[in-house]
């Protein structure tokens, strides 16, 4: 059997009946010592280490008397003239009409915000060495019984195709890699993770466990309603070296339709609050990066 690892298969083979050559033995021993003293990553069963990107947005309650919560960092998924200061297209035109692929916001009444509809919170990251995306978590909850009213369901005046009380399915998660040959063309992005049109009711923390058996010394305040927690784990998505990735959460915005204007928990009755003020947001991206050398 050849010694495939010591000397990378180049170490001399010794066999009964062959000459005892001092040079060959010396080479074998040198390769052996080198293999033990300079162990490459391929000889290790485990050679990755995790890193986590943790984010948080806690919006001010819509009932606050003074402070105002704008949409930032939530930005429209679509770029058009309505999204430009002065409404005038640049000479070169819009480069990327859609920032995210495969998005959808259900029609709502006769006045749909076709220029926007969906809003996305996008974080961009660069990995110089190969990496592996293993997990993404998006938690949304109302950390107070007095503020933030998202109940995660469609309301009395739902979008087309939805019914009162139905679990929302208009929230989306996307992770994409920029095309290395045409890095600013979002149409050419590779979609690594795309989770869309899923009922959020399947991603709730258990409803009958609202009160913990034991709490932290700084106890959690009572929360309002249910907690949504989408935890994507064991993704195992490889990223090539010099990857640029974009991690996006998408939420809908339904236009006023001249009626009751109570589409869902994202905006409440008469759009009393906007989606980015309906709940608080926390995300964690878990990535593996290789051990390195000097």
């Amino acid at each position, binding site marked *: *059997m050849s010694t495939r*690892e010591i000397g990378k298969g180049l170490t001399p083979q010794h066999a009964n009946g062959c000459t005892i050559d001092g040079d060959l*033995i010396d080479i*074998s*021993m040198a390769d*052996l*010592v080198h293999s*033990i003293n*300079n*162990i490459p990553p*391929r*000889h*290790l*069963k*485990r*050679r990755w*280490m*995790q*890193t*986590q990107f*943790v*984010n*948080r*947005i*806690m*919006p001010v309650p819509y009932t606050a008397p003074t402070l105002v919560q*704008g*949409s*930032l*960092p939530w*930005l*429209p998924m679509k*770029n058009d003239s309505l999204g430009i*200061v002065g409404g005038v297209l*640049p000479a070169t035109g819009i*480069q990327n009409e859609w920032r995210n692929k495969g998005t959808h916001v259900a029609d709502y009444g006769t006045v749909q915000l076709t220029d926007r509809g969906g809003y996305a*919170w996008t*974080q*961009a990251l*660069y990995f110089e060495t190969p990496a592996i995306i293993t*997990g993404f*978590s998006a938690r949304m909850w109302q*950390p107070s019984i*007095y503020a933030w009213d998202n109940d995660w369901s469609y309301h009395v005046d739902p979008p087309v195709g939805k019914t009162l009380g139905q679990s929302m399915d208009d929230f989306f998660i996307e992770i994409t890699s920029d095309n290395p040959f045409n*890095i600013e063309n979002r149409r050419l992005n590779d979609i690594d993770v795309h989770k869309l049109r899923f009922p959020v009711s399947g991603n709730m*923390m*258990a409803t009958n466990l609202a009160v*913990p*058996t*034991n*709490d*932290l010394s*700084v106890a*959690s*305040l009572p929360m309002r309603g249910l907690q949504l927690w989408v935890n994507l784990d064991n993704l*195992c998505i490889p990223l090539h070296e010099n990857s640029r990735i974009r991690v996006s959460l998408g939420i809908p915005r339904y236009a006023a339709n001249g009626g009751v204007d109570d589409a869902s928990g994202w905006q409440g009755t008469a759009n009393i609050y906007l989606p980015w003020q309906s709940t*608080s947001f926390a995300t964690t991206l878990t990535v593996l990066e290789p*051990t390195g*050398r*000097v």
Partner: protein
Amino acid sequence: MTKITRKDLARGTKLTREHVFDPLQAAANELSNVNIGRANLINSWGSFRINIHIPTLDARYFSPVVDDPIRFAIPFTLPPLQEYFSALGARDEFTPELILDEFQMSFDQRAESAGLQSNIKPAGQEGLLNYDALDQLGFSVALLEKEQWIYDKASTNYDPQSEIFSTDLPAELFSGVYSRQNPVIVSPLGKVLTPYRTYMLVLDANSLYDPNTPITLPSLTLSLKIRHPLVPRDTGVANVQNIPTVHGGNQSPDTVTITLPTAGSIISADAAQGIQTNIKTIDQVLQAKLRGGYGKDSNVPVTEHLADDASYEVVMIPVWAGYSNNAVLTAGTAADTPDALVAPYTTVQQDANSVPIAWPMTIHHVLLHVNHQSPSEQGLLPTSPTFQQSVSVGIGTGLQADNHTYQDIANLTWDTATVVGATVDRALNIQGSGANGQPKASSDKYDWETLACPIVTGTQGAGVGYYPQGKPFFVGKASSAMWGRSNVGNGNAGKPWTEGAEQFLQVNWSLQDPVGLSDVAAIPPGGAGTSNEVYVGYQGNWVQIVAKKHIIGLGNEIKI
């Protein structure tokens, strides 16, 4: 953890058993005694990142008119792991090195070559594309270093003393139609960092503010990649809290046997004592790959080879981030707190964050970076003697689980009188005078505080840190075989409340003034002296977890 050696077989040398079997036996000894250390590895460094995400860095922050330019900064510190920590803050030859490799920065431009309008503008206009504002996207970034107050408590100099690196990021980087450097990466840096120092990552983005075209940086991400050598992992139920008792983190050696030829035996290749046979013995171990580290289920390999299978980790957890367009909470806006109820606003206000546990790690230190940055309020510190903040860091279970419970890892409660007993450092970022033209008193000329949040102390006894605290605390998801855990502080009769089933880290950050968060002049009785006192500075506070993480793999790992 030593390299093996051999005797050279020069021409004319008599071939002896030692020439062949000494190195073979040395290799077998290394592999049989969990003795493959970082000295034996080509990739002998782990890496970690200081990851900072700011929901929006807006022109609003840079708009107040003061004599000195305004900068935005985030501090962090890199205390050694407990086994290397010196109470005197002194490095020695055993203190692991820290090397800054990479800096990167990104922000959302809506996938266009444009700036985005600030939230200073009327509601509904924020975030609009402004193709004429590209020249305002030039910035300067620096990493500054300062000595820590805990090692010189008489000092009132809170300014950073030295610069580790700095770079200009011209607007051209973010302006190309077909190629924009967003994210922009600066690498390799190769800068040595020092433990027992505070670092401030500083961003000068004054160009964002223009009275006619104020722009903003949504979803600003800053990341520093830092190298730390591989080190041994934490072991022993007497040394680590919450570690699975079935293995205690201890390592079991493999058995690698070399058959030595006896005196007078024929030199052979393929016999049991043959040269080729014994080389193959070593080779097979390498083919099967060397083992160490942890699985996702908090289990360890049956037998191991790697002595150094862990490294340094930092998890930066933001709280109170993005709270309104102002992103600052002051006594003047106490009515806008989440549970404001009625004046003078005496109820507890809280934010929280949760981080799913991916792979196991042992937490060695928890640091709190308390933010008072606020250009418009000149970063005035709270003065009310009854104003109190409390932080708990713990583990929890309850995500689609059978049980919902939490276990403390670290806790701290402080007020204006007791904060000095937890203070590691004070740092000044924004220069300039008081809000009403009055200079801040020298004793409070700082707008960041770094506090040590002590780890709970279990039956293992005292650990090591800036202030008294417990031993390192293991966290890791587990299959049922790993549910038995070692004792913990603040436990259920010594055992962790989470019973080995933790799924996430939980951070709760509360603030309260029983007299009232409002200022006494505006809304009496109110605890604050003026409405400008800053409870939470621009874009919130940070909890920094310093831990020891392990090498991990995919392959045949149990996926939980």
